[in-house]
C-alpha cells in the first residue's frame, strides 16, 4: 500500500534532513499545530502560581476576618456598638477628640464616678459629637479628675493609659455607660479589660502597663492642677469651658444637660 503524500516514512526522515518528525507532547501524542513547549510551560507555571497566590490571599483574608470577630471582645458590653459607631473615624490625640484644625474647643472636667457626667456622656455628648465634632467644627478635651474615690482614680488611670494610644474617648464612653455605684469596686480589672477589648486597636497589656506609670501620675496631677486653677479650688463635675482654638477658654454656665445649653455658645464662637 502506497503511503499518503503528506506522510513520510521513517527512512525518508533519516535520509532527508529537511523532513522532521512531528513534535510530540509529553504523553506521546503529536502536537498538531507544532507549538513550542515553552509558552505552554510558562502558562502552566503562571496558573499554578496564581492558584497559590489566591490561596495565600484567601488565608490572609480568612485569618483577618476570624481575628476581627474572635477577639477578646467576645462578651457583649453595654454601649459598645453605639460607642464604636459614635467615635469611628474621628481623630483622637491624647484626651482630645476632633480634628486638629477645629476652630472651637470645648473642655470637660469630669470624674468617671460622677453620675451627671455619665448623663452628659450618654444623653448630650452624642449630639455634640455628631453635629460639631464630626463635622470638624469643635474639638472636645476631657480633663479627668478623681476626687470621688478609689474607683475614680482607677478608671481615670485606665482612660489616661488609653489616651497614650489615642483611644481615650472610646474607653471613657464605655466606662461611663457601664458606670456602677460610687466606690463599690465597680472599676475592676475585668471591666477595664472587657471595655478595652471592645476598642479597635487598643493594646490591652500596654494599657494596663501604662496605667501605673509615672507619666500617667504626672498627667493626672496636671489635670488636677488645671482644675484647681480654673475652678478656684472648688472642684465640681461636670464643668465645662469653651473658646476659640488658641485663645483663653471661658466657663460655660449651664442649668441642665440639654444640648440646647451648649449649642448657642458653640454656634456663637463659630460665627453662626
Amino acid at each position, binding site marked *: 500500500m502506497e503511503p499518503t503524500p503528506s506522510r513520510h516514512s521513517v527512512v525518508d526522515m533519516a535520509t532527508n534532513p529537511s523532513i522532521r518528525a512531528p513534535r510530540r507532547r509529553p504523553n506521546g501524542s503529536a502536537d498538531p499545530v*507544532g507549538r513550542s513547549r*515553552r*509558552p505552554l510551560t*510558562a*502558562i502552566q*507555571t*503562571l496558573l499554578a*502560581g*496564581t492558584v*497559590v*497566590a*489566591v490561596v*495565600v*490571599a*484567601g488565608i*490572609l*483574608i480568612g*485569618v*483577618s476576618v476570624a*481575628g*476581627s470577630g474572635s*477577639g477578646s471582645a467576645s462578651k457583649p458590653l453595654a454601649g459598645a456598638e453605639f460607642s464604636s*459607631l459614635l467615635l*469611628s*473615624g*474621628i*481623630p*483622637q*490625640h491624647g484626651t482630645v477628640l476632633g*480634628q486638629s484644625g477645629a476652630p472651637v474647643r470645648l473642655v470637660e472636667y469630669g470624674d468617671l464616678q460622677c453620675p451627671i457626667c455619665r448623663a452628659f456622656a450618654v444623653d448630650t455628648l452624642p449630639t455634640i459629637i455628631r453635629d460639631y465634632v464630626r463635622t*470638624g467644627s469643635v474639638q472636645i478635651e476631657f480633663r479627668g479628675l478623681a476626687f470621688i474615690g478609689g474607683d475614680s482614680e482607677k478608671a481615670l488611670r485606665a482612660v489616661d493609659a488609653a489616651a*497614650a*494610644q*489615642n*483611644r481615650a474617648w472610646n474607653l471613657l464612653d464605655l466606662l461611663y455607660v457601664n458606670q456602677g455605684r460610687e466606690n463599690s469596686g465597680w472599676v475592676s480589672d475585668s471591666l477595664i479589660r472587657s471595655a478595652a477589648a471592645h476598642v*479597635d*486597636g*487598643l493594646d490591652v497589656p500596654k494599657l494596663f502597663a501604662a496605667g501605673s506609670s509615672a507619666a500617667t501620675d504626672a498627667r493626672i496631677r496636671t489635670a488636677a492642677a488645671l482644675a484647681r486653677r480654673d475652678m478656684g479650688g472648688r472642684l465640681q463635675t461636670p464643668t465645662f469651658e469653651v473658646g476659640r482654638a488658641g485663645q483663653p477658654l471661658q466657663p460655660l454656665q449651664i442649668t441642665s444637660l440639654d444640648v440646647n445649653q451648649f449649642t448657642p455658645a458653640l454656634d456663637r464662637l463659630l460665627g453662626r
Partner: protein
Amino acid sequence: MTEGRLRSAIALFAVAGLGIASYLTYARYSGAQLLCATGGCETVQHSRYAVVAGIPVAVLGLVAYLAFLGTTAFRGQTAAAAGVCVAVAAVLFSTYLLLVQLLLVHALCQWCVAGDVVVTILAALTAARFLVSSGVEPPLAIPRAGPARSRNGRAPRGSAGGASA
C-alpha cells in the same frame, strides 16, 4: 516596551510602595501620629483589621513590595510569572482591606489608598512584563521597526523560516 524597561518601572513603583509601607510600619511601632488629610488614618491603623495573626498589615505590605522588587532582580518568564503571582495576592488582599475600610471601619486611610494605587499599577506592569517575556506584545505596545512578527511572536506565513505544509 522591552522587558528591561518594564522591570525598571516595576522596581520604581515597588520602591514607592516600600516607602509607604515603611512609613506606616514606623508609625505603628513608634506610636507617631500619621500625617493624614482624610482624618481616618489613625482609625484604620488602629482598627482590629490592621493586624493579621499578630502581624501588622503594614509589615505584610513591606514583604509584598520586597517580593515585587525581588522579581525585578531576575529576567525571564519565571521571574515575570512570579511577579504576576505576587500581584494577584496583593490585589486581592488590597481589595479586601479597601472594602473593610469603607464598610466596616467607616474610615479611609490615604496611605492605604495610595498603596492600593501602587499595587494596581504594579499588577498592570507585571502582567505586561509577563506578556513581553512570553513573546506576546502587550495591547498598548508601540510597534517597533524590524522584521515583521505576528502577535504570537512567530513569523507570519510565507516568510522565511515559516512552517512548510
